[in-house]
């Protein structure tokens, strides 16, 4: 036990080592060696994280290097508080005047659970990528990036202060940039990568301000409830009492700035726009970053700093509102999308909204519980979609497009209108995907039911408006997931005559004629369906979690009930039959509506969506994501471009003109001075000048202009003025 506690810092070290080895050594030349190196080290990290979780769950802790047993902490009713940490290791990172900033790791139940979740999900994703990326020429680089990404996420989970947390958080942002733009030949991928980095950076800089605000107020940024920590109760009480800016208390101001980081990273409204575009990255990336881990980091940030939020409930109201709004808003968009990954992306936004809303109504355990179950089943769904896309891309109709436009082929392969009937063609994928689907829809006994129910219960108890909003969102979740599941797996396969994606970036190509002929070829080759076992294995592992992860925190007083709540030292929630029953009914109703609406839709890929047939205006609005991207481009984008132009103009047309004007004026004075010198004072220095001319000719060879002549006047004038001061005024 002591081993796992003592060496917890090694958990992020392994993937970091993998990344460094792949980047810096010739291992990168052998794709399979890189892949298995990264995966193998990730497995070691997983074992260590599970060992650490076991140690923490059994109450073991390190105090001054000695193994001790902590008393079991049950959350009391009332103010939120963290239990005592199991491991805290710190060292001086930088001096700050008379004090010093310490860095280190801080492991408690929440960190241990995050570490276990991230390592398991990441290992599955590594395994899946071995199959998925097998054909890609830059496979080694891919593994280097996802390993670095995982290392940053793990480091963030165990950070002992907000600075380290932020540093790891930003490194994840970097990896996200690199991975979204992994297929950098595509202009769309390059654009999406920049968009993701910049949009999240807007949140990040506000988060940075929140951290320095807290630093200024608290004199430190280390986690902990002792007098050096930021959760020291008297400190929080003071922060909530004293007023800062805009009539907000310090606590509310800090909390809202921190929350801005969450809005960026967890893609909450209004900074959600980057996440759907981020689907440009390879599918395992979507699973790793945009479902299981990175976007969850935002939720974890609020969870980590929760005492600051509870100190002043004003901030919690904002959190609840943004979360609930995003949950509903994103769910409505997901109903009208055709891209399988984008549906999942909007679903991710919506589910993150659930978690954020849960935190907003004080449901810390519910949010963290949902974070963990969601990570498993959403990673499953994304990887499942990867398996589907991978299979679709092998089909003759898509391969035809691939000849002239790789990007269009991929986008066409992701369109659910072009799928259908895959239940029998991809059976493993179908069954595992179904597990993920039922978990997301919230059907008992799948994992999502338990965690979502706990969120709804907290909302029901504390904020009925949030409860209603989330219930509608839950209903829509069941609708859009049923729509997707049905269109992908049931009915007839429609991909032989696909809706072909029109690539706006495609260069006018001499191969354009393929577009016209591609229908003729597919009969010759026929369909060919294949599921790669390296991709199926992780799906099965994740599907088992999607089925069983609810056991982690069952709302019953069984021996293993409330396990997570106990681990986290929080109050355990009891099952409320009314809320649970309602939530199940809502989910079933959503499934029924989805099935009824789409049971006969799309006999061919070019058919109209039933919703579009009923309400074309609404469908277009939802399909266009409420035109928010266009709105931002027209306002913020234009503003930025105009400001850049304006600043540039100011420099050139105003400031530079002024400077040049002053310069010309000085030249004028210099000329006057020259005339005076030349006529009145020339005789004396002539002898001296002839001596210097020799060296002057040498110097003149070095350069061509006459600037130095003018400079001599300036310098001479300066000297004259100085002499005047010294000997005339000074006397």
């Amino acid at each position, binding site marked *: 036990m002591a081993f796992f506690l003592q060496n917890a810092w090694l958990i992020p070290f392994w993937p970091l080592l993998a990344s460094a080895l792949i980047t810096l050594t010739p291992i990168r030349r052998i794709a399979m060696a890189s892949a298995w190196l990264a995966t193998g080290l990730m497995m070691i990290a997983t074992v260590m994280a599970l060992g650490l979780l076991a140690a923490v769950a059994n109450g073991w802790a390190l105090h001054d290097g000695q193994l001790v047993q902590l008393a079991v902490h049950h959350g009391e009713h009332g103010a939120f508080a963290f239990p005592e940490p199991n491991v805290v290791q710190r060292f001086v990172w930088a001096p700050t005047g008379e004090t010093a900033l310490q860095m280190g790791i801080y492991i408690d139940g929440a960190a241990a659970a995050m570490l276990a979740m991230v390592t398991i999900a990441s290992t599955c994703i590594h395994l899946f990528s071995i199959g998925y990326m097998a054909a890609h020429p830059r496979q080694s680089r891919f593994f280097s990036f996802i390993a670095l990404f995982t290392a940053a996420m793990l480091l963030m989970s165990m950070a002992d202060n907000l600075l380290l947390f932020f540093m790891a958080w930003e490194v994840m942002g970097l990896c996200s940039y690199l991975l979204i733009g992994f297929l950098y030949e595509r202009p769309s991928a390059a654009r999406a990568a920049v968009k993701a980095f910049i949009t999240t950076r807007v949140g990040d800089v506000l988060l940075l301000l929140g951290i320095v605000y807290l630093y200024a107020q608290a004199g430190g940024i280390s986690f902990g409830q002792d007098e050096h920590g930021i959760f020291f109760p008297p400190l929080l009480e003071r922060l909530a009492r004293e007023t800062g800016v805009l009539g907000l208390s310090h606590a509310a101001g800090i909390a809202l700035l921190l929350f801005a980081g969450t809005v960026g990273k967890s893609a909450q409204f209004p900074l959600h726009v980057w996440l759907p575009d981020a689907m440009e990255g390879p599918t395992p990336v979507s699973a790793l970053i945009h479902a299981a881990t990175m976007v969850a980091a935002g939720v974890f940030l609020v969870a980590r700093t929760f005492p600051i939020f509870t100190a002043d409930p004003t901030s919690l109201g904002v959190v609840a509102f943004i979360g609930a709004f995003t949950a509903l808003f994103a769910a409505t968009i997901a109903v009208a999308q055709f891209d399988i990954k984008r549906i999942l992306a909007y679903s991710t936004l919506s589910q993150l909204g659930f978690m954020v809303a849960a935190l907003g109504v004080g449901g810390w355990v519910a949010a963290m519980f949902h974070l963990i179950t969601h990570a498993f089943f959403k990673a499953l769904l994304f990887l499942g979609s990867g398996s589907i896309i991978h299979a679709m891309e092998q089909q003759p109709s898509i391969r035809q497009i691939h000849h002239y436009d790789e990007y269009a082929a991929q986008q066409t392969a992701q369109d659910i209108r072009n799928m259908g009937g895959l239940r029998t063609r991809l059976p493993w994928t179908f069954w595992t995907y179904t597990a993920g689907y039922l978990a997301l829809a919230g059907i008992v006994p799948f994992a999502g039911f338990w965690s979502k129910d706990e969120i709804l219960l907290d909302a029901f108890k504390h904020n009925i408006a949030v409860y209603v909003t989330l219930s509608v969102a839950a209903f829509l979740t069941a609708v859009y997931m049923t729509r997707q599941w049905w269109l992908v797996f049931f009915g007839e396969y429609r991909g032989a005559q696909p809706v072909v994606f029109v690539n706006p970036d495609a260069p006018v190509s001499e191969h354009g004629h393929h577009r016209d002929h591609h229908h003729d070829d597919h009969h010759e080759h026929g369909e060919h369906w294949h599921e790669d076992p390296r991709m199926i294995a992780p799906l099965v592992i994740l599907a088992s979690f999607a089925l069983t992860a609810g056991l982690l925190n069952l709302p019953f007083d069984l021996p293993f009930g409330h396990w997570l709540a106990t681990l986290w030292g929080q109050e355990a929630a009891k099952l409320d039959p009314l809320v649970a029953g309602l939530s199940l009914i809502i989910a079933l109703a959503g499934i029924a509506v989805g099935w009824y609406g789409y049971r006969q839709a799309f006999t061919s890929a070019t058919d109209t969506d039933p919703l579009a047939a009923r309400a074309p205006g609404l469908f277009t609005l939802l399909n266009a994501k409420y035109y928010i991207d266009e709105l931002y481009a027209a306002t913020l984008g234009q503003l930025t471009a105009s400001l850049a132009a304006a600043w540039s103009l100011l420099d050139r047309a105003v400031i530079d003109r002024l*400077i040049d004007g002053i310069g010309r004026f000085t030249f004028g004075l210099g000329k006057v001075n020259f005339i005076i010198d030349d006529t009145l004072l020339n005789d004396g220095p002539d002898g001296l000048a002839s001596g210097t001319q020799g060296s002057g000719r040498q110097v003149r060879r070095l350069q061509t*202009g006459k600037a130095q002549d003018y400079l001599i006047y300036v310098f001479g004038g300066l000297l004259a003025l100085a002499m005047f001061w010294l000997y005339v005024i000074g006397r």
Partner: protein
Amino acid sequence: MNLPEYLIPAADGVPWLTLLMLSPLVGIALIGLAWLIRLNERIVKVGVLAWTGVPLLLAIMIWMRFDPQAVAGGQGAVQLVERIPWIQAVQVDYFLGIDGLSLPLVLLTVVMTPLAIIASWGVQERLRAHLALLLLLEAAMLGYFVALDFFFFFICWEFSLVPAFFLIQGWGREQRRYAAFKFFVYTMAGSLGMLLLFQLIYLAMRQVGMPTFDLIALGRLGQGLAVAGVEGTLRDILFAYMDQLGVTDVLGRYPMLYSSIAMWAIFIAFAIKLAVWPFHTWLPDAYAEGPTAASILLSAVMSKMGAYGMLRLLLPFTPDAAQYFAPVLAALAVVGVVAGAFGALSQVNGDIKRLIGYTSINHMGYVMLAIAGAAAAGEAGIDARASAINGALVQMVAHGLSTGALFYLAGVLYERTGRWELSGLGGLRASAPTFAGVMGIALFANLGLPGLAGFVGEFFIFRGAWATLPLFTALAVIGLVVTALALLLMFQRIFLGPAIGTPRTIADLRAPEFWSIVPILSLSLLIGVYPGPLINLGNAAAGQLVAIFARAFS
């Protein structure tokens, strides 16, 4: 000569700082010798590069002899002091010393000069003169950072312009003459006020019986610390002298007025060098038009001369005025931060060197913000203010490393593509993956990615400045976003997308190019991951410097 306790000579009696300053000059002599015996240019290049190791080694020796914790008489102890009477008629001493504020910049100078030499590898015309000017520039900058008597300090300040001017003028691009001239005259004209101020200070000091150009003694007087043989603070001494001259009858009997005038005289001189808005327009021209080596040294080291001057002169000499005008300085800093960022953004289809130049304006804006934040009135204690100064020092080093690397890589890119314009490039990552990777690291170091040095500087600057100037600090983060956007778009224009630009492919970094940039980026990574040793150099001195602001003026 008897030295007060805050001036500590070298224990071993070796004039380390003089050796440091002279070593590049010896290099120039060696180039002359090589020219006399008609040595092959290639050997000269290698020889000069090797010779830049001498100041580097000396600086490391100095670093090892330096005790960063030493504090005496209310200031960080000045160490390795050399003091010899020089021009006795005007009480000028040859006075060198180093403390926590100057040592990081000395180290930066000696680290960046080899890179500048390497960047000159491809220079075809008058190579020896080019290399000699670079060494001359190094000597002048080192002299500036270690000089503690205004006379020598100012000579180095002005003299550093000469090699820079000739470098831009002689080896620059099309607009080089305009750029060089603007750069030279602007900086020189700006320091006029400061020069006059020091004549005045000298005379005022003469009235109280201690005529001096000693920057340490004057700084101590400014901060109200004890100096043997003189009573009163610099403000009172100046005011008394003004009174005696009768100036107070005209302008009024406000002591603050005269220290304010003094502060602005100092500020303008250094603000031009630091490219604080609106004194910044020389910078994009000078950086863009100069040869790569000049761009590297100008951006990486020379712009820091301005910030160092503010720390050495402005804060200690006129703390009251600095505190009073801190919001104004901060406002200029923030405008510069935003202007630099948007200026860079306006160049994403334009000139790569100009773009990097504008990001320098943005980054130096943070340094200015830190200095203002350290001085501004407010409840903040020593920790916050010292953090601002620490952050400024780290930011200077970090910006030197990352911008130097970016200019170097821009030069390498030009050698391959033959163009400075970003439009018309694209997709070069496929043919030059290592180049793209290295450029990416330099770029992320520049935009302040955690784990690289730039972030450490920015974090501590924000941490310190927020405590006294939260509004300006909050506005300054706009620059963080927009600079990142500009740099990422730059990267996108060059490397990403389909390879349809001209040229379609380029050669990847060659081993010598790669290995010359690796040490710079490794240093950035090292500082970013563990900045303790670097911050430790200046922390004690910074804490003492800001103590007067933390105590606040009545």
